[in-house]
């Protein structure tokens, strides 16, 4: 029976390399066999070891386990229990046990026999020893190192390279590989000229160099890293809310364009925030570790999902940088690779002492504005100090008086026994300082409350501190997309011992350190349900205690100042006399959020409550940040704390009014940030987080503490390195690392040649298939490091090789012999990546936008796809300007709604790190390329372009169109096929059987774009032909 076909060239399947060598090689032949059949029970993991037998170490294998004698007797297979067991016919004796269903084949048993006969030499797994640059063979007929290794292998196989590809093919190949776009006809012509004067090799090399300087190079190569970095524009899981992380994407594009050394590229992404005098760009780089998913489902326990995100980070670093599947060791010691479970948590510990932070990102211009603003303010302050030389004494006196005033009111912090939320969506955490931190679900409406037994009697007032925390956006203290908050009501209820009723206690005379003037909520906070009568107000602290949910205390101090602490104090109408055992329920209600299910929430992120017995408690307008700073001894204060005190003091001094006005005016010029970035930030010393080994890898099953350390089987950590993330970055990019450089060059190779030298780009461990050219990989890895970890250098090496320049034409014999072209007896040929397919189509049709960097763009999306979301993405407004035709790199990626066009061509979803994509040819891809609106618009545009630029007759136009798509001229047969389609369409259009108006233009077409002398019928006929040409295999492939 036939079936719905999806033909495929799967990169993960069908290894069919023919070997010339006959002798048994431990790494190549034996290690994988032992890993496959034996190590599960007789490997490194103590926990699962059977019969005390270990076969992963020679010494242990020679000794044997508790059942038989020596498992291996070198030179004597017949006396080796290993062989006896494997060859046994007794179901109780035979190994592996039948229930494992992994019998050793006779051929493999023969290999083992030969190996033991040869002396059973063990060798460490090749990928765990640092690469050494092998010498090039003397007899090599080529000077190009890549070709030397490729040819040596081909010679052994009795094969040879193919002749060079046609110049137009090579020109197109270089364009697609280096900038991800096809050459224009002009670029092709220029290349021909260059070939004519300097020869193919020189012309190709010059072209490669030029293309690597093109800024579109960064756009093409960033995408490969975005796969590894599981980049997406939404948070994933049920809510899958949008996020802004494109600043990180821009960083990657720019890093590739600048050819940032790979060691620095990795270092900045792992620990950019810890570099001395780190720049904004280096902070953005650290976004790499935050590109994973964020669970914001109602009622989640945030710590569980932070841990899941940590596992994901380990996976991204493991598969992307180290090429090792660390994930196995999350739950137990790795069965095959030398990574103990404790070592997994050793690496984990480097990353674990972190906040899940979000920071503002300012454009270059904004950064200049801010720098100038700070300088201007500093100048005003200097003037102030100069003109008022007594300022220090005055400030000191003020501070002393202020402290004295503050100390008159004694506050007793409320120690929460429990927390809750009436919506039950939040599980707020009680921190050691008794502050309450709310993470997880971003709740637009509802409360968070705590339960406590107060320790004081005769309570007169309550203080609410609104505090910052680095797990909150921009440090908070709020949870809105700006880190702001609006508190609708503060409620206190009491329940007498033995009672079952909560009695509401009335609060009066609320005061705060800062408040905004009373006004309606701004349009951005609009909520269709709550704003029916347009009554929601924000303003003074009095709104906290007025019993009206539609009024809120808010203290947004404006851009540049808003992410700071605040405080409010309210008095009980009747001083409380609480019998011992009275329970209090203290709630913070938010009712001022907007419509978008999360980002526009107005929750307070972290707060702390205290009670007082002092009479008439209240606060003045001393900024709470300054109040907190004053509690710290002057010599221990940070510059920011000192500044906070100064800032709040000067405002209290009437004679400084002119300075204050000037500074206030300057602050008003502080720009709203261009965007923001999610990143990790190191926790403070006093707030540090311990790492524990997790039993079975379960997030809350912590066992013994694990300090940061690295796997013993790999190179050691630099001596005296502090155990910080920066040290981990240094370790990952250490030249002694056996893996980092190999993994990096292998991924570059994979992108250019279709399959990596190590096929499993994410796994270089003992179960990885044998590399096709191990020596070449090592040569490239060392050469990479010797050339300053320059990725452009490696790419230049690859694309200047004869191996790369070969014709991709394949004979039946060769196709059968080497279907995946691992040996490179022909040039690389495969369908381009999803993004490149779309970009090719836009480029040849003339639609491609030159947008470079910046926010993601929403492509048109069928309504049925938009509808089927847990939260309908109401923000999805397809671009109708030129950014509609941006490069696919900029297409918005929503994880739970994978872009159908990208998916049809095998782009990953961003759920997890992806180091290599499969390549399929599915009917869904065919439908997409034929009928997706952007593709249709491209065919219409290509028709117009051909009519405008393609000459005066059909044949010239057909040639032009064909060349735009494939970079070559059609054969006569090909040309007549196109012309036949055109003429038959023309006839039907003229007969009115099909309507030009429907076919020629989309609803976005502008009259000004249409070639002046083209008739609708002509455009329609050519649009039909253009659709065919855009769908050619050759158009979407690297040939």
């Amino acid at each position, binding site marked *: 029976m036939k*079936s719905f076909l999806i033909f*495929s060239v799967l990169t993960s399947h069908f290894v069919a390399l023919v070997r010339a060598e006959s002798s048994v090689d431990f790494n190549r032949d034996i290690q994988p066999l032992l890993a496959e059949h034996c190590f599960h029970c007789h490997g490194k993991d103590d926990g699962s070891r059977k019969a005390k037998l270990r076969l992963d170490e020679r010494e242990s294998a020679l000794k044997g386990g508790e059942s038989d004698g020596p498992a291996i007797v070198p030179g004597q297979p017949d006396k080796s229990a290993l062989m006896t067991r494997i060859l046994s016919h007794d179901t109780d004796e035979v190994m592996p046990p039948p229930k494992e269903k992994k019998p050793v084949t006779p051929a493999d048993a023969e290999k083992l026999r030969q190996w033991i006969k040869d002396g059973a030499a063990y060798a460490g797994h090749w990928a765990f020893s640092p690469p050494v640059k092998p010498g090039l063979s003397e007899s090599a007929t080529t000077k190009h190192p890549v070709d030397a290794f490729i040819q040596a292998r081909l010679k052994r196989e009795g094969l040879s390279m193919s002749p060079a590809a046609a110049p137009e093919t090579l020109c197109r190949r270089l364009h697609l590989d280096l900038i991800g776009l096809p050459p224009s006809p002009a670029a092709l012509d220029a290349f021909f000229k260059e070939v004519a004067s300097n020869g193919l090799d020189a012309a190709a090399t010059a072209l490669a160099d030029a293309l690597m300087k093109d800024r579109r190079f960064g756009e093409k190569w960033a995408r490969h890293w975005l796969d590894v970095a599981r980049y997406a524009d939404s948070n994933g899981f049920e809510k899958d809310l949008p996020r802004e992380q494109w600043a990180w994407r821009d960083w990657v594009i720019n890093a590739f364009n600048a050819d940032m050394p790979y060691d620095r590229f990795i270092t900045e992404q792992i620990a950019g925030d810890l570099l001395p005098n780190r720049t904004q760009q280096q902070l953005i780089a650290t976004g790499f570790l935050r590109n994973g998913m964020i669970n914001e489902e109602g009622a989640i326990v945030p710590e569980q999902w932070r841990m899941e995100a940590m596992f994901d980070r380990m996976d991204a670093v493991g598969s992307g940088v180290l090429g090792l599947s660390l994930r196995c060791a999350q739950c137990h010691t790795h069965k095959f690779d030398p990574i103990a479970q404790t070592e997994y948590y050793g690496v984990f510990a480097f990353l674990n002492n972190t906040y899940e932070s979000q920071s503002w990102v300012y454009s270059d211009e904004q950064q200049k504005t801010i720098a100038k603003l700070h300088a201007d303010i500093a100048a005003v302050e200097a003037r102030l100090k100069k003109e008022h030389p007594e300022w220090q004494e005055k400030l000191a006196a003020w501070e002393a008086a202020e402290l004295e005033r503050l100390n008159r009111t004694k506050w007793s912090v409320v120690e929460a026994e429990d927390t809750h939320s009436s919506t039950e969506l939040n599980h707020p955490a009680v921190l050691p300082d008794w502050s309450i931190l709310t993470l997880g679900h971003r709740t637009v409406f509802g409360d968070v409350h705590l339960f406590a037994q107060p320790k004081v009697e005769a309570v007169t007032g309550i203080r609410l501190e609104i505090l910052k925390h680095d797990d909150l956006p921009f440090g908070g203290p709020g949870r809105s997309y700006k880190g702001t908050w609006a508190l609708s009501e503060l409620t206190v209820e009491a329940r007498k011992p033995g009672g079952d009723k909560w009695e509401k206690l009335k609060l009066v005379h609320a005061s705060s350190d800062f408040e905004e003037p009373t006004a309606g909520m701004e349009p951005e906070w609009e909520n269709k349900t709550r704003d029916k009568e347009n009554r929601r107000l924000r303003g003074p602290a009095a709104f906290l205690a007025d019993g009206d949910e539609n009024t809120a205390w808010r203290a947004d101090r404006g851009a540049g100042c808003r992410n700071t602490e605040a405080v409010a104090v309210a008095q009980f109408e009747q001083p409380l006399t609480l019998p011992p055992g009275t329970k209090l329920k203290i709630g913070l209600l938010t009712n001022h959020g907007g419509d978008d299910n999360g980002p526009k929430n107005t929750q307070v992120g972290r707060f702390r409550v205290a009670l007082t017995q002092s009479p008439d408690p209240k606060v003045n307008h001393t900024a709470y940040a300054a109040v907190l700073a004053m509690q710290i001894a002057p010599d221990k204060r940070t510059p920011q704390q000192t500044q906070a005190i100064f800032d709040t003091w000067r405002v209290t001094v009437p004679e400084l009014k002119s300075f204050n006005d000037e500074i206030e005016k300057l602050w008003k010029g502080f720009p709203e940030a261009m965007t923001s970035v999610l990143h990790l930030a190191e926790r403070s010393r006093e707030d540090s987080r311990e790492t524990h080994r997790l039993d079975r890898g379960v997030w809350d099953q912590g066992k013994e503490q694990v300090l940061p350390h690295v796997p013993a089987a790999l190179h050691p950590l630099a001596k005296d390195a502090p155990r910080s993330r920066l040290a981990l970055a240094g370790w990952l990019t250490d030249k002694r690392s056996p893996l980092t450089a190999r993994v990096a060059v292998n991924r570059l190779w994979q992108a250019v040649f279709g399959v990596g030298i190590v096929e499993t780009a994410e796994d270089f461990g003992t179960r990885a298939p044998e590399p096709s050219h191990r020596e070449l990989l090592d040569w490239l890895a060392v050469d990479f490091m010797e050339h300053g970890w320059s990725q452009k250098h490696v790419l230049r090496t690859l694309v200047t090789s004869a191996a790369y320049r070969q014709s991709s034409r394949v004979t039946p014999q060769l196709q059968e012999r080497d279907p995946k072209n691992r040996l490179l007896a022909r040039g690389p040929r495969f369908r381009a990546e999803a993004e490149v397919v779309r970009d090719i189509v836009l480029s040849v049709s003339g639609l491609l936008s030159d947008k470079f960097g910046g926010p993601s763009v929403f492509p048109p999306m069928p309504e049925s796809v938009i509808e089927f979301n847990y939260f309908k993405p109401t923000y999805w407004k397809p671009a109708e300007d030129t950014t509609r035709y941006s490069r696919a790199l900029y297409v918005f990626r929503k994880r739970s709604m994978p872009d159908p066009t990208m998916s049809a061509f095998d782009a990953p979803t961003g*759920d997890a790190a992806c180091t290599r994509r499969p390549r399929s040819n599915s*009917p869904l891809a065919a*439908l997409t390329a034929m009928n997706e609106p952007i593709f249709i618009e491209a065919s219409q545009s290509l028709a117009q372009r051909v009519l405008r630029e393609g000459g005066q007759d059909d044949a010239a136009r057909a040639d032009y169109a064909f060349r735009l798509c494939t970079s070559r001229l059609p054969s006569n047969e090909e040309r007549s096929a196109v012309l036949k389609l055109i003429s038959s369409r023309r006839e039907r259009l003229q007969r009115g059987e099909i309507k030009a108006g429907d076919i020629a233009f989309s609803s976005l077409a502008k009259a000004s774009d249409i070639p002046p002398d083209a008739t609708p019928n002509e455009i329609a006929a050519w649009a039909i032909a253009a659709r065919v*040409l855009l769908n050619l*295999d050759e158009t979407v492939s690297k040939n």
Partner: protein
Amino acid sequence: MKHADEIRHERARQLTRRWFLRDCTLGLGAIALNSLLQRDAGAAINPLAPRQPHHPAKAKRVIYLFHAGAPSHLELFDYKPELAKRSGQLPPAELLKNYKAAFIKPNSALLGPKFKFGKRGACGMDLSDVIPHIGGIADEMCLIRTMQTDAVNHAPAQILMNTGNQNFGRPSFGAWTLYGLGSESEDLPGYVVLTSAKGTSGGASNYGSGFLPNMYGGVPFRSTGDPVLYLSNPKGFDEETQRASLDTLNQLNTAAYKQNGDADIAARIQSYEMAYRLQNSAPELIDLSTEPQHVLDLYGIKDVKQPGYARNCLLARRMIERGVRFVQLFHEAWDQHSGLTKGVEKNSKDTDQASAALVKDLKQRGLLDDTLIVWGGEFGRTPMVQGGNDGRDHHNRCFSFWLAGGGVKRGHVHGETDELGFNVATDPVHVNDLNATLLYLLGFDHKKLTYRVQGLDMRLTGIAGNVVKGVLDNHRNDQPARDGPPEK
């Protein structure tokens, strides 16, 4: 692993055959080439070609009715008179040790079932009055009352139920099935997804291919617009224009194929022909106007164009008739934290009749014996109340699933929960056990159906899972299991 080998070998054979084909067809026109390719394609080229599983099995295909949001077992399938009696009282303290609900404080009052239950069918299965039609097929059902899962939030729990793991990025059960059995449909995808109500918490990953090649993932059939995305030709294109376009495309691609010889080009030529066939088969498939009135009545379909669960059930039948291997319905509507009574009533009204109709319809067509029907959601709901007196929170310690057809017992209840429907009393069935059992019914040893990722042989059931023998109909599953790789 063995299975991957099998595909690998098949691919090797296929390449040889394709080259034979190419040599023989050089010089022939594109049409001849295509027809030869087509004839040869199903058996030789295709990673989706039908394959035999590890052991002979009754179930050859699956219709999985996923009721997302977590349907209340206490209102539907698990009759608890004691819970009714103790409604309003606090649950026993010992029950709550180490218990964490998602939202509520564990120490919330018990809430009695909102509906009456009664004995249904000759087997006397206790089922709720709110699902009378499902009650009518009690004698066909194998009801599992003792399902358990690890997750207690929707997205992770849905992902766990569908992929065997709480983390995103794993293949769904449907993808594993397709990977294992291949597809029997000539013109339709092997794994089709149909949705009603709202979007699910787990999103597209619920039916994704995870680390398997994406051809094994579910293909959504949409209830509005194109049934398959981008199925319709551009505006103004008639059938003749599309055919002429494809003929030109094939001619040009064939020329390139002859010139270059890359087998991938032949594959692309075929994918366009398949797309063309899908353009015809999909509209035919979703056109319910040819269904007789009594069938529409059976499903409760009043308007054949009205999207919804009932229509999806009938589409599922039409799909498996046309060789689709795995059809999965998602109906996300069951998260009754409040409004429990009305919510369950509405959902039952929307889904009860059609679910039962599907079983009856398959039975009368002789398709039930080798089609496995699965009905269930990601977890159950607390015996304790949430909110006032008409809501329940998430509960993962026990909940109900039912199976029918393809090798499972009929009129059978597996497992018992305690008197409050809080914990499993006997015969727990973990998600992994369920998945191991479903794979068994399809002919697979769940420990052998593996795919290597990062050096690990990954499987649907992780490192756990036991086949639940108690649900297998021994009269229908008495073939001995056989070791070794799947066979052609």
